[in-house]
């Protein structure tokens, strides 16, 4: 009895550290969420934590902030733009990478090792190295400020990681599967469709989630190639310009910020395992 009490007491510091860190990580987001539902007067005159004095007081919460930022502040349009940007910018690089990764994993051609080494090297090249020449190219070809321009840019930046991961995954597929398929007269294209792709669904899913989150949350690439025009700007660009223009209007800023996070949070909570795997796999990206 006493011994168990002792060990419980000995574990108090452990719980204090862990619960303390959990609170420190969670409370900032909670404050944002609560503030986004409060009226302007309330947000500007008292801290968000004061709602806990009367948590069930009707009328202190409102959806007006969301209505205002979605319509008047252009976050609705920006949400649509983010979707238009992100979906092709997720599918395209994975498609292109899968083809190349298949060749790297299962075909013989000169310079195979060297070319793959180049891909590994390109993994960590800082984006900053590419901005000026590509922007110049885009200004000449009128791709600046267009959706196809940013789809292609994200495809380029996503490729090294996608090729690297898929090649490693594809080369784990047992050789026998290919040999028997080729004996049956399958072409390499058939083998790709009926063996490689179906067996790689988990890897493709993790990669797709990583690329989706990366593009959705990207600020720099959109800022440089799309600019701030409301017609094409995604959520991150719109939100960062609202930070300047709205200043201390925290009731609107918090709602706008939460809109930009909503979709990634849904993916995080519904597909947590793939999400974590995807982020881990993508960690080497430059």
């Amino acid at each position, binding site marked *: 009895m006493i011994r168990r009490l002792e060990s419980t007491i000995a574990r108090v510091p452990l719980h204090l550290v862990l619960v303390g860190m959990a609170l420190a990580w969670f409370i900032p987001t909670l404050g944002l969420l609560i503030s986004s539902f409060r009226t302007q007067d309330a947000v500007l005159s008292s801290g968000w934590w004061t709602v806990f004095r009367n948590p069930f007081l009707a009328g202190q919460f409102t959806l007006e902030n969301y209505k205002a930022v979605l319509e008047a502040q252009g976050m609705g349009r920006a949400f649509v733009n983010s979707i238009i940007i992100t979906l092709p910018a997720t599918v395209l690089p994975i498609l292109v990478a899968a083809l190349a990764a298949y060749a790297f994993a299962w075909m013989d051609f000169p310079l195979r090792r060297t070319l793959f080494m180049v891909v590994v*090297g390109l993994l960590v090249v800082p984006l900053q190295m590419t901005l*000026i020449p590509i922007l110049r190219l885009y200004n000449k070809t009128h791709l600046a400020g267009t959706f196809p321009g940013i789809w292609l840019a994200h495809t380029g930046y996503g*490729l090294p990681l996608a090729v690297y991961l898929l090649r490693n995954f594809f080369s784990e597929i047992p050789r026998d599967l290919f040999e028997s398929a080729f004996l049956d007269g399958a072409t390499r294209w058939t083998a790709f469709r009926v063996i490689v792709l179906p067996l790689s669904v988990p890897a493709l899913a993790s990669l797709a989630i990583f690329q989706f989150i990366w593009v959705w949350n*990207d600020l720099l690439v959109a800022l440089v190639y799309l600019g701030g025009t409301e017609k094409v700007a995604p959520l991150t660009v719109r939100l960062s310009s609202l930070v300047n223009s709205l200043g201390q209007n*925290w009731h609107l800023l918090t709602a706008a910020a939460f809109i930009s996070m909503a979709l990634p949070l849904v993916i995080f909570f519904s597909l947590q395992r793939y999400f974590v795997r995807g982020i881990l796999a993508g960690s080497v990206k430059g």
Partner: protein
Amino acid sequence: MSRKRDWVPWLYLAPALLILSVYLVYPIVGTVYYSFFDKRSQHFVGWANYKWALTSKVMHIAFRNNILWLIFFTVFVVAFGLLLAVLADRVRYESPLKSIIFLPMAISFVGAGVIWKFVYAYRPKGAPQIGLLNAIITALGGEPVGWLVNRSVNNFALIVVGIWVWTGFCMVVLSAAYKGIPKELLEAARVDGANEWQIFRHVTLPLMVPTIAVVTTTMVINVLKVFDIVYVMTNGDFGTEVLANRMYKEMFNYRNYGRASAIAVILLLAIIPVMLINIRRFQEEEALR
């Protein structure tokens, strides 16, 4: 599967090689080239942009801040990740705890910037504080602090946001390594009378060194390119500018492509050692196949 003069592989490779050449290889060459030219890339200026990059006051501030990030961000993010990986394993609420810590990885840096700008919100003394941090400080009898404008704390205020975002990542990677340590090893040390700290110091830590090294290099690459957090929270004002933000300003505010390119090349040079380590690691892995 190999045939003489087999051109089929190139069909599969062509789209990827084309896009990689246009979006990565060509720009790398281009940026190095532009870094030796003037702001409109018309006149060759030799090393002038690099001389500016290494001697001007604004660049010294940017270098200093990148170094602050490099040290404080990397140390804390890895230390917190390690602490959580080792301690969370001992409690029943491990999985919700990890979810909470990992959650910021889903959020954009812009979103994280807004979240923390609100935490740091400042009101003059006497007015009700709506920012959590200043509310705590004034409740304890202190003076409110302008976290993002006060030059002695603002860089650290930004670094905290980076730590908040990336700790979850370090925790998950290190936790996987920790769980891979055979439990008999830890038990044997315990039977021999070692206390928890001694076990950590002499058994756990040495076994986790390779993973810690990988996590640390990843964080170093990240921190060299830090941009979004600074852009959103201070735009580099009040002495918080970092290299990536300076480059962006040279590019868009001053239209000086020569200087901007030189900054990009400096970032690349800082990352090249990591690139070589990656290639070497890959070759070793291949040798084991």
